[in-house]
């Protein structure tokens, strides 16, 4: 019962924050509202027992998304408060409410027993050598989704780069920052970055058997890179750099390479030869983590703003 009260509280809080974010008068306040929304949503995910998702939501849904939204909130001039007409609000409100009502009906009338693939996942999990069922889904059963998702992230990065100016093509993203002498940030960064990197690698490592995994770990690594960049400890790399490009491509190349090797060795694309499942999956995870961390960090860093 206590749990239910807690859940009700979290749900109400989430809805309240969402409503506030929508109603907020200025853009920056709305962004702040959204970051708070990400945090309570993470709570909801843990309450639903989905720790992997909670980690992802915290790292990417709230964290990384929050960072770029904050950046935009600071850069973009607030839109003039062009309030929609009362009639429009009523109509759209009614339509949205109708959708919500329809969904509620579906939530309240679930099929019984609830359909689930949990049994099938469990049945075959041993043959993947993994202990974390979500890792099994992402790296074995639905590995193609994960592979494509990596391509999506890469494409998003190229999309972000495509929005730079011609003159800056191949240059470095973001404004040039000189290492700040003294101050809190560099010090903070010097302490935090190594710790973050260790934690990030740990998250990837345990992802095979416990909540965690490459996306969450990569996000943490990316965050450390961003932090180090903001503190001026490292320069954002030139996007034309060959080493950077290999770094970005390494994960997808390893993934597709091992996947294709599966055709002769294991009888199918993205199948792993028996006995080698876990090591191969780990190799992919490591390669992907490195590439994804670079991709995410560069996406957050934005388009190139300095000539090469």
């Amino acid at each position: 019962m206590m749990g239910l009260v807690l859940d009700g509280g979290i749900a109400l809080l989430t809805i309240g924050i969402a409503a506030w974010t929508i109603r907020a008068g200025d853009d920056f306040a709305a962004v702040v509202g959204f970051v708070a929304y990400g945090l309570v949503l993470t709570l909801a995910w843990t309450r639903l027992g989905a720790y992997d998702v909670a980690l992802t939501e915290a790292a990417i849904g709230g964290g990384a998304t929050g960072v770029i939204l904050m950046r935009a909130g600071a850069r973009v001039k607030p839109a003039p408060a062009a309030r929609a007409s009362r009639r429009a609000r009523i109509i759209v409100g009614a339509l949205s409410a109708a959708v919500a009502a329809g969904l509620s009906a579906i939530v309240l009338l679930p099929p019984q027993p609830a359909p689930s693939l949990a049994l099938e996942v469990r049945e075959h999990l041993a043959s993947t050598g993994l202990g974390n069922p979500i890792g099994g889904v992402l790296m074995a059963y639905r590995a193609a989704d994960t592979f494509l998702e990596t391509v999506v992230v890469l494409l998003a990065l190229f999309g972000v780069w495509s929005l730079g100016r011609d003159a800056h093509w191949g240059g470095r993203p973001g404004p040039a920052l000189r290492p700040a002498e003294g101050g809190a940030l560099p010090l903070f960064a010097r302490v935090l970055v190594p710790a973050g990197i260790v934690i990030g690698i740990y998250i990837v490592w345990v992802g095979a058997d416990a909540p965690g995994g490459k996306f969450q770990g990569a996000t943490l690594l990316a965050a450390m890179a961003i932090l180090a960049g903001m503190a001026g400890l490292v320069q954002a790399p030139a996007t034309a750099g060959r080493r950077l490009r290999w770094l970005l491509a390494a994960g997808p190349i390893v993934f597709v390479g091992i996947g294709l090797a599966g055709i002769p060795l294991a009888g199918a694309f993205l199948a792993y030869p028996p006995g080698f499942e876990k090591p191969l999956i780990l190799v992919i995870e490591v390669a992907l983590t490195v590439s994804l961390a670079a991709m995410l960090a560069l996406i957050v860093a934005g388009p190139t703003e300095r000539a090469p």
Partner: protein
Amino acid sequence: MPDAALSPFAPLLLALASLFPLALLALTLAAPGFRPRLATLLWLAPLPGLMAAVFAQGAIVSLPTPLALGLMLDRPGALLLGSAALIWCAAGIAAPAWWGEKLRSLPYQAWWLATLAGSMTVFIAADVVTFYLAFSLVSLAGYGLVTRDGTVAALKAGRVYFALAVTGEAFLLSGFVLLALGAGGETRIAAIVAALPSAPRMAPALVLVLLGLAAKLGLVPLHLWMPPSYGAAPYPAAAVLSGAAVKAGVIGLVRFLPYATPTETLGIALAAAGFFSAFFGVAIGLTQRHPKHVLAYSSISQMGVIAAVAGLSLAAGRAAGPTEIAFYGLHHVFAKGGLFLALAALSMTGNRGRAALLWPAAIVALGIAGLPLTGGALAKLAIKDALGSGWAKTLGSLSAVASTVLMLHFLTLATVMRSRDASAVAPVALRAAWWGTALASLALPWLLFPSVGGSLAATVAPQALYELGWPILAGGALFALLRLWRNRPSLPPGDILAIIRTGEPWLARLSNGVAAIEGFLTDWTVAGAVLLLLALALAGAML
């Protein structure tokens, strides 16, 4: 011609009738160096068509599947194909004389050849798709001939021409689809027409087809395009458009009506529409001030007669109908095409040599009204049976009276046509083209009349001479009376087009209205709301 005598080359000839102009078109597109030569050789392009008409009757060409396109030639088709080929040939001789250097440029040659290709193919198409293709080609490429002068009036006329052409095609296509559907997906015309009597939705299918053909034939009220277009088109173009291109509508009447089965209602309706056009064309034609426009209204009237004959034959289930229509059409090809060539020659002629141009014009023009002993008389005799002996016969004779009046009106206007240069003489090629066509209009019907089942002896019988002669005399008298009416009204070519044009601001308002709707719907909030609405509506619609 019996099938046994059919040369093994006949199918080839048939294919060439359609492909030779296309080959020349490709040549002029690809080889600019050939154009000066081609300008003087355009008259050659329809010759395979002419040869096919003479030697390839009964031939069939069917391309292997999946290309379900086919050609075939029967007697009515051969009559129209041969006459159309000849007028194209004559106009091809006249064209260099009229246009001179201009004819060496690509647009002139390309439009000419494309229209020709369509014009030849439409008579020999064996399936509805080929027919529609040829029909569209002759109609749409004709646009290029109408607007060849590039004047504002020509472009304006071209817009009306184009609008009615595509409208007609939309009707035709819908009709064809329905016909094919009625024949179980069959596209061969013969199979479709055979299946027609038992086909469901036969009436709507035929009505749609007839509407499409009516736009081509210029039946009222789909005639709007014809006077301005013939008025704007240069003479050689007007000759082929009025002589040959319009016959795409005639062959349609020949091909798609189930003459073997009496179809009362539809036939009478078609006949009524035809007779209405026949008299309407004359009435409005008399208000025209330019001989080109008069000829256009005469075409409206004559095509009305053809439609009436088709309708009556359909109502009575007369199997001879198609051949008679084609024979009547054959005469009109030469007469109408020829008169445009005569006008061209007259307009390039000063004071000398006018009589040699005008006298044949008088005979040919009155031939349209059925002047005894002319080719036109035979055309009238050919449709005599179809008109029967009742009210239709009376209407037929009255239409001959009306045509006489209109043709006399034309001749009075034609005598005024002359070159500003008093000493000018039209190029010999132009005059020859006209004389040749005039001769064809007089002589060829005599040659061919027996082959369509007519008796030459009967044509000179007193009964026939009387029946054909009195409308001419009555028409002459009527015309004399009419000349006494000094302030005859003068209508713009295209008559009710002027009224329709007053609707243009309304059309602009409609377009602005659409833009306003579009502006409203492309607002973010509106589009978003529609998105939600669609989601809810689709979900709701299925529950």
